[in-house]
């Protein structure tokens, strides 16, 4: 062994210590939650009720330990990628909603909505695995019972058309909200074309 060389055990120890400190630097916070903007760009809030305190996150890329023991801290993009890259990549295609409108009284779609139906089918077929809800609505003209039935007839008619357009094997939940869920609030006995609708959600 020359004078410039350190004994092997010392080198080993130094390396191990360096490695351990590097690893702990990489590991970052242990159990934590981080707030990020929603896909639509809006930013909400996240609260933590921990065993050792409560925290509230209000800024993007802010994090808090899940035990609530420390005030919120900033989390780097690199850290988020390291901890959540796989979970983020596994995120399914977000749900998509379509609104179809009807002529007065029956289950006949307006001309524009007939054209939209084809786009619904294309979007549904583009998803790897799709389930959908088809919810019928009416305006407030006529009795509530009759509107409940009318809205269900609308949803059922649309679901049947979709099945005939290539979605025969798609899981569909068909429902009626009658006149209980107005898109445009109106008094009773009001004809309102925007309330005569079927809402389709692709998931």
């Amino acid at each position, binding site marked *: 062994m020359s004078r410039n060389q350190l004994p092997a055990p010392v080198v080993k120890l130094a390396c191990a210590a360096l490695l351990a400190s590097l690893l702990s630097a990489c590991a970052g*916070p*242990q*159990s*934590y*939650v*981080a*707030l*990020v*903007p*929603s*896909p639509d760009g*809006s*930013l*909400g*809030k*996240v*609260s*933590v*009720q*921990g*065993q050792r305190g409560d925290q509230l*996150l209000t800024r993007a890329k802010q994090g808090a*330990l*899940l*035990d*609530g023991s420390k005030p919120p801290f900033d989390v780097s993009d690199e850290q*988020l990628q390291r*901890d*959540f*890259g*796989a*979970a*983020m*990549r*596994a*995120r*399914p*295609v*977000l*749900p998509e909603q379509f609104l179809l409108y009807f002529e007065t009284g029956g289950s006949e779609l307006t001309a524009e909505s007939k054209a939209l139906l084809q786009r619904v089918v294309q979007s549904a077929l583009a998803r*790897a*695995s799709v*389930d959908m*809800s088809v919810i019928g609505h009416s305006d407030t003209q006529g009795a509530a019972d009759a509107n409940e039935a009318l809205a269900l007839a609308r949803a059922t008619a649309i679901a049947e058309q979709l099945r005939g357009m290539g979605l025969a094997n798609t*899981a569909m*939940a068909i429902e009626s*909200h009658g006149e*209980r*869920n107005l898109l445009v609030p109106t008094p009773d006995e009001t004809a309102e074309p925007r309330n005569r609708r079927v809402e389709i*959600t692709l*998931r």
Partner: protein
Amino acid sequence: MRLLQNISHALCAAALAALPVAAAAQSAGVGFVKTVTGDAWVTTTGQRVKAAPGTEVAIGSQIKTAPGASLGITFKDNTVMSFGPDTEMTVDAYLYAPAQGQLQLSTSLAKGSLNYVSGVIAKLKPDAVTVKTPSGIIGVRGTQFLAKVEAPQ
């Protein structure tokens, strides 16, 4: 003729009796698996199935991903949750009846990583969404968040 009528009545009654059961079985599902890479499982009432796109998730279902695997779920209210490797999550409660004001989404994340995107439940009733973890409870005010739970050493 009378006999035939009786038989058909009996058959109708049997068919009607079977209906609510079918409806209940249908409504048990609260979401579907949409994405899977690697090995992942959904266990519902003791039945463990290998997860694939289209696998149903119900109240009480436990989701598990293997090391290196990931999985994504879309719930009926459009809440989207996806998980990274070596993750365990349970759906403790799920209520989605907006007309009756019945809204709840409670899950437990025992370990692993989660990417959560809020749906209708969080929009209508923010207090109704919680994610329990071994050291604390996450509450949501309509947003996207990420959570990591390290398994106890």
